[in-house]
């Protein structure tokens, strides 16, 4: 596609349920990032994939969060046993190469945990 595609755009879930958020990066982009955007908190780095290298998971806030990237393309961010503090907009971005710094962002997935 022309841009980074994320789904769902909106997700409302109950506390304790698991959620999966999907990101389809720009074709040919080798780097893929997940960030979390909360009101007043800016963009919080979660995880970063570069090609076939082991991902940088240093930003994942707890072991309830995990992400995978299949075939070097589509990525899924999974949040298990959701908590209210997980409510945020989850942004995915991709980049042509790991060292350009030019990230192309999707529209985000807004997660609300009741």
């Amino acid at each position, binding site marked *: 596609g022309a*841009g*980074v595609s994320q789904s769902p755009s909106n997700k409302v879930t109950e506390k304790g349920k698991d959620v999966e958020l999907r990101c389809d990066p720009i074709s040919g982009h080798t*780097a893929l*990032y997940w*960030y979390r955007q909360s009101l*007043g*908190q*800016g*963009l*919080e*780095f979660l995880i*970063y994939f*570069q090609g076939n290298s082991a991902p*940088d998971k*240093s930003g994942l806030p707890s072991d309830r969060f995990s992400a995978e990237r299949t075939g070097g393309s589509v990525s899924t961010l999974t949040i298990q046993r959701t908590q209210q503090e997980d409510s945020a907009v989850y*942004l995915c*971005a991709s*980049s042509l190469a*790991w*060292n350009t*710094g*030019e*990230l*192309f*962002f*999707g*529209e985000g997935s807004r997660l609300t945990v009741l």
Partner: protein
Amino acid sequence: AQSVSQHNHHVILSEAASLELGCNYSYGGTVNLFWYVQYPGQHLQLLLKYFSGDPLVKGIKGFEAEFIKSKFSFNLRKPSVQWSDTAEYFCAVNEHGSSNTGKLIFGQGTTLQVKP
């Protein structure tokens, strides 16, 4: 740990006023520096970037930023703002030439409101 601070959380200006948004980072090594912008209802997009060379960087829509290494700063400026500059602005940093280069760290963001 590397961090980025944006001191102005919410700025309100009238059209034609000059703009300067502050950004400071904590990392002591060589860095790459960026400003991203998010217009209402749109994606985050790159405004300008600094990797090396002339510390005064020019970006799109008349924006510029100056890297001052001794102050660990990368402030964003525009001589005369327009109503269409209303947006949220994010400063970002990554480490140059290390295994962490791919990891872009963002500041908290500054909301700019320009009154017509």
